[in-house]
């Protein structure tokens, strides 16, 4: 691949990434924290994040694609239980989940 092509791709990607952020700041001028539009956008944002997480767990791309779906879902379920058992300690639960995934992945792959 030519260097110029790669550098152009990087700059174009950066512009394509900044555009939704730019438009978001612009649109936010018409939104206040207590309004209904804010709540609507909040619902959509949480929805997109939940959808993204679900997709990564069930239909991942890249290196995670080669791991077992059952292991990923099992780890997710156990991690949620640990999260509640640890009074919503995100740090502890996340590290627990990764270690559990690492161990199970050794045996099921």
């Amino acid at each position, binding site marked *: 691949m030519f260097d110029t092509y790669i550098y152009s*791709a*990087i700059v174009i990607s950066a512009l394509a990434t900044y555009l939704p952020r*730019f438009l*978001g700041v612009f649109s936010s001028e018409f939104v206040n924290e207590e309004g209904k539009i804010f709540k609507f956008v909040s*619902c959509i944002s*949480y929805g997109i994040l939940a*959808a993204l997480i679900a997709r990564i767990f069930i239909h991942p791309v890249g290196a995670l694609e*080669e791991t077992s779906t059952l292991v990923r879902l099992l780890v997710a379920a156990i991690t949620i239980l640990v999260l509640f058992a640890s009074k919503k300690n995100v740090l502890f639960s996340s590290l627990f989940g990764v270690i559990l995934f690492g161990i199970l992945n050794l045996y099921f792959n």
Partner: protein
Amino acid sequence: MIKTFDNNFKRGCLAGFGIPGISLAASFFALGALFKNTGLNVTQSFLSTLIGFALPGQVVMAETLIVNGTLLNILIAVFLTNARLYPMTVNLVPVIRQKNRPRWHYYFLAHFIAVTSWVYMLSNYNRITKENRFNFFLGLGSTLWILSTISTVIGFFSAEIISKEIFVAVIFLNPIYFMCMIVSVLNKPHIVLTVFLSAILAPILFLLTPDWSVLFAGIIGGSISYWFFIR
């Protein structure tokens, strides 16, 4: 005169060095390795995170480069992948808005809005007074950005050293962290229903339209929940 680099900025930086920074650094570490395998050099990998800083879009760029896609292909693919940043930005800016702060500050800050910083801020903003949130978020976002850029470079050089098993576990940290964060903030009925519906819809819609499944699932789940609880 508005002061920006105060104690709240430092608090934001410290928050960035915690679990948000660790999980994001792990993902960008993996991205650095992916860039090396794609054929990018270290300067290009560094530059991509420095000026791009949105992991899914960077992955799409690398995948499009592998198949020799045109620059227009890359522009459209990356824009569609990162379109989720639009509602997140619209959602975040009113939360951190500060009286008398120049508008361009927000356009500058927008570069640091990504899923990790958004989730952390939306989960914790009630603990920060309104006039201090901008500085806090600037500290948090800029720290995550710097950590990510450094991690991309480290990942690039570690691509052939780290074993595959450890590499996969490292990648898994970010989705696990996102999951824990979102589950930990499920305290309002409309958020619970949104998360539940979107999480169910996304894998189903993936079978119909893989590229749009996340966006569509989020919009449908969020709209139903809004209509049901708020409208």
